[in-house]
């Protein structure tokens, strides 16, 4: 089956796996919870990378933690999406001059989408998911 068709089925039920080492996770919790409720779009968090369709990498990554992130990405069954959450994943954010942070995530992992913000609003996360759905439709 073609990749595009697979992706069409995938965006209808996205199971996400979180890889966070900064403030990102506490900011994504409301999205799971009852106020923003991402389950209404079929998105649920799972505990194992083997079940996941979408890897959300939140915040800055260090030289050490990026190895684990890459390992998680390799463990995920394809097709899979990678989302970089927060401005730290794009540019290093407020740690831009630190000696051991990763400045650009896409140098290490094939990132499909960045969601900017420090940290991003829940609405921004939904908009990101919407962008992916639009991308797949095209």
């Amino acid at each position: 089956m073609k990749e595009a068709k697979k992706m069409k089925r995938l965006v209808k039920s996205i199971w996400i796996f979180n890889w966070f080492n900064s403030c990102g996770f506490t900011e994504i919790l409301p999205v799971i919870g009852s106020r923003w409720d991402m389950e209404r779009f079929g998105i649920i968090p799972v505990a194992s990378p083997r079940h996941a369709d979408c890897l959300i990498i939140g915040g800055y990554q260090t030289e050490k933690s990026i190895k684990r992130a890459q390992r998680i990405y390799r463990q995920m069954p394809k097709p899979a999406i990678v989302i970089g959450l927060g401005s730290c994943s794009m540019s290093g954010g407020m740690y831009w001059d630190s000696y051991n942070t990763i400045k650009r995530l896409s140098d290490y992992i094939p990132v499909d989408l960045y969601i900017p913000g420090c940290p991003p609003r829940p609405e921004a996360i939904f908009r990101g998911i919407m962008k992916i759905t639009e991308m797949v439709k095209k």
Partner: protein
Amino acid sequence: MMFKVLLVVVISLFAIVMGLLYKGIDRIFTARMQSRVGPPVIQPFRDVRKLLVKESIVPENAVKWLFNLMPVLALISVIMILPYVPMGMAPLLETHGDLILVLYLLIFPSLALMIGGFASSSPYAAVGGQREMVKMMGYEFPLVMAAISVAWLLRSSGISNVFSLAVISGNPVWALAGPIGCAGLIMIFLSMLSVIPGELGRAPFDVSEADSEIAGGILLEYSGRNLALFYLADAVKTIAVASVVIALFLPYGISGFFGLSGMAALAADFIFYLAKLLCIVFIGLSFIGVVSGRLRISQVVPVYWKYPVMVSLTGLLLIAVDTVL
């Protein structure tokens, strides 16, 4: 004969669809009780459709044939239960199997999960498998007690072939027992309700798949097609377990009430059966799941052996008193 074979195929396809539908309804119930909107009803169908196109990874150190065989076996064994239990009508294979066979077949999906977990070579899955085994020790006892007490009551009323599910659902137990016996039956019914979440691996007895402690437990290494098969097996098992509870305790039809006959009676009974199924799913899965957190593994067996077992033993004692009087 051919007709029956065809019916079995129809019933298994129907059970898969209904199982997924009830899973969706259960998710909506759960969401509404947590003041969320919840996914659309067809979300489980979307999940399965997606899982079927995903890559199916087999870990390097896994026992490959066991790892790939167990999901298929789990689904087949739950589907095998369905022709033996009454689903709004007499069971299709009523002369070929009885309640004891169904109780044995209900063990099999858990066993398949366990073997699959052990075969996947992951330590987390091995822990999950051991937890599943411990949990089974807890819930099997009240389950068997319910079966025994119903059969005993039928036997003492002078009915033969008491373990046949057609006989059990043909003679509602509530009419056979006196007031003391009815009190006992209510206690056994309650302990049976507490078995449902354990049997299906849901909160508060979801220790074997505990997401936050052992990262998915038994299902940890499963992905793609194999995970989809386990997902389907879980959905069908919901229908099977709830059907057994309905056959034991709520085997009433609605057609006699309205004076229907023929196909109309069959249809009315079937719709009524679906409504009963919804009640059981709501009370046994959604409600208990929402109001309770996950028990620790060291609490599961003590909780089962303290309350449901004691309650069902007392119930059995009351029924014994009732049959003597």
